[in-house]
């Protein structure tokens, strides 16, 4: 609710200054928040339901949220001073690096499913909530590092990003197969196939978005550096029309 409200406030601020914000991005944000909320609401004791919620929280919601470019909106909606401070945080090198995010995300999953953390989380609601928050945040960081168009001064080139995501997809698939052979107590072995095939489907979406971007840049689409090195002080003065790309995620 707070996330949806804050985003709406940001868009409204821009609109009052006469700056356009593509409705497709707002739509992606609200959809992402809705998916995350729906997945986060239940406390699933059934492993099948837990894995479906895991996919929605860890990957489906992050894709939608990343497409909404919340950091760009934040930088534009804030006054120059606070925007500068946000930009300063973004310059922390390790934070936006895909490797950090991939280790956080895949590492968290391995810990959850290969130790007794899963059983512990099932027994304690607060721990379960913590696991869910970690899943959403790590999923967001990873997706943003791979296909994000928000400003990230330290974002590495496509080769590094592609290889990191490839390693992540492999780790995810290996873990799903391992879970098939070693399901947690009370789960069916077949349940892990949801994680495997569902994960494949969502990873495929990320890979398509990734290559669409790479081929657009290779084809000479302008604006890459403009989005890589933001300068909130000159990003958009009131009255200046922002260049709007029609499609999501481009």
């Amino acid at each position: 609710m707070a996330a949806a409200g804050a985003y709406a406030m940001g868009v409204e601020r821009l609109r009052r200054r006469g700056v356009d914000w593509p409705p497709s991005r707002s739509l992606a944000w609200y959809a992402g928040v809705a998916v995350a909320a729906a997945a986060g609401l239940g406390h699933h004791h059934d492993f099948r339901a837990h894995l479906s919620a895991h996919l929605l929280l860890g990957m489906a919601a992050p894709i939608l949220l990343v497409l909404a470019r919340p950091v760009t909106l934040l930088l534009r909606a804030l006054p120059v001073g606070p925007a500068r401070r946000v930009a300063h945080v973004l310059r922390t090198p390790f934070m936006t690096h895909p490797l950090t995010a991939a280790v956080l995300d895949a590492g968290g999953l391995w810990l959850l499913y290969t130790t007794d953390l899963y059983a512990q989380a099932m027994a304690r609601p607060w721990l379960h909530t913590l696991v869910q928050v970690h899943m959403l945040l790590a999923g967001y960081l990873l997706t943003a590092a791979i296909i994000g168009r928000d400003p990230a001064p330290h974002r590495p080139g496509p080769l590094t990003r592609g290889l990191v995501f490839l390693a992540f997809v492999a780790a995810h698939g290996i873990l799903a197969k391992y879970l098939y052979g070693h399901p947690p107590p009370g789960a069916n072995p077949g349940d892990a196939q949801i994680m495997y095939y569902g994960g494949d489907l969502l990873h495929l979406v990320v890979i398509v978005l990734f290559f669409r971007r790479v081929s657009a840049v290779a084809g000479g689409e302008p604006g890459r550096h403009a989005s890589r090195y933001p300068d909130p002080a000159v990003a958009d003065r009131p009255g200046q029309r922002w260049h709007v790309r029609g499609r999501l995620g481009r």
Partner: protein
Amino acid sequence: MKNNVLSGALLGLGLATTLDEVVFHQLLHWHHFYDKSTPAVGLVSDGILHAASFFAAVAALFLLASLRRQGTFQARPWWGALLVAAGAFQLYDGTVQHKLMRLHQIRYGVDLTAYDWSWNIVAVLLIVAGTVLLARFRRAVVA
């Protein structure tokens, strides 16, 4: 020429792994999703290959789209590379993955000899067909 071969080869790899997954795992249920005798190294290499084939297929299609846009698409080297790559994967799958790593078998509860031989012969035929296409193209270019 170079990008035609690259695009064809990447799609060949992506298609071969996808067809394997869809036909033998999903439709026929011959292959097992994970048979418990799989050693760790097999599981890891299978995971990496599976992820790589996704990247390969998507990259191949974007490359193909850009070749067509630039008008530099050439069917013969593209198909040649596709067949060679698909055959090479099938051969790798049939020898290293099924036999050496014992990831899973083609089918369970039957004598495997005929299955293994046809699997690998199909692979070799694909490689030969692709090589012929590539060689013909090269000769046509040189001549």
